[in-house]
């Protein structure tokens, strides 16, 4: 079942959390095929998050890989208080933030660095909706890190300000301010 953006911040679908819990329990016991099943269920959603936050296929895939490795290693810390997908999102966001900090230290700052694919939203338009969505994706990618992170988590993934602020390690007020900034910049840039 395709997961809609509206649902991605919470449970993927009605049966999703139950199936996730079943797979997590098996994976905790060292069942690698069960963890592979979790990867298959969530890789697309985690990659979408990472791609939108980093603006780069290569960086996003690095983040996805690292997120699943960390998830496997720390499965015992997953207490089931939130959906598995939310827990996984938190791990991925942490990884993205680390990458963003690392990239921003380099001379020239953070840049989209896919040599083979300078525009991650232009490589294969057949995979996603063409036209306006691509314009919006590209414009989101052009936002400053702080504004883009908040916009992706709140506006695209559907997390509340509190959840997004917790994930990003910022105050709720900062989260709201960054969203306002993102919306203003997006409106201006989309009108051009």
């Amino acid at each position: 079942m395709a997961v809609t953006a509206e649902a991605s911040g919470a449970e993927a679908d009605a049966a999703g959390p139950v199936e996730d819990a079943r797979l997590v329990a098996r994976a905790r016991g060292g069942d690698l095929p069960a963890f592979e099943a979790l990867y298959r269920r969530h890789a697309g959603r985690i990659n979408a998050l990472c791609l939108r936050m980093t603006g780069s296929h290569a960086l996003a895939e690095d983040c996805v890989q690292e997120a699943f490795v960390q998830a496997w290693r720390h499965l015992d810390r997953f207490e089931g208080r939130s959906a598995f997908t939310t827990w996984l999102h938190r791990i991925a966001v942490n990884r993205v933030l680390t990458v963003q900090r690392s990239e921003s230290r380099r001379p020239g700052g953070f840049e989209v660095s896919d040599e083979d694919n300078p525009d991650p939203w232009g490589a294969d338009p057949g995979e996603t909706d063409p036209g306006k969505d691509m314009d919006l994706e590209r414009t989101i990618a052009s936002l400053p890190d702080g504004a883009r992170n908040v916009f992706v988590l709140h506006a695209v993934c559907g997390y509340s300000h509190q959840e997004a602020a917790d994930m990003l390690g910022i105050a709720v007020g900062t989260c709201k301010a960054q969203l306002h900034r993102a919306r203003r910049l997006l409106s201006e840039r989309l009108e051009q």
Partner: protein
Amino acid sequence: MNDEDSLMQRARRLPGEIPPRRDLWSDIEARLRTPEPAASAGAGWRWFALAAAASVIMAVAALTVLHTDRQPTLPAPAPVAVSTDFPAPFGPAYSLGPQYQVARAGLAQDLNSRLATLPPETRASVLRNLEAIRAAVAEINAALADDPGNVLLQQLLLTTYQDELAVLADVQDATEKLPKRNEI
């Protein structure tokens, strides 16, 4: 409906899933099948202590270098053999920037010959300093292998590499300011 509400609605309609360009599972599985290096008891704090020790030694070394610079003496060249091919790893999933590598290689190039021209006490301080920094780097990398996403560890590693660069730069600076035999 205003433009901003429309924008938010468009954002919510963006695809929730975008598959990676390639299947990442084989890479993930390979990493999961590789045993994690066992974290020794107290290792989480040892690197911190080593880094702190390195900072203290560096401060002493910097003072010594400055002191030596103000009181130029002719040091007796001494044979020194410090490894200059010391790797600068940043955990298994990271690499340091090329500009850093170039700067480091440049500073390390003549390290042994430069060290040989320093007064014995200064030279000993620098060597202790580099040894402590490199031990700290090894400890931090071992901790990072266990916890690659630890931002504090990553920042500490970067700082430690910067400390090493600063020591190498101090050595270069000090040896360039010392009078050469043919200048007397």
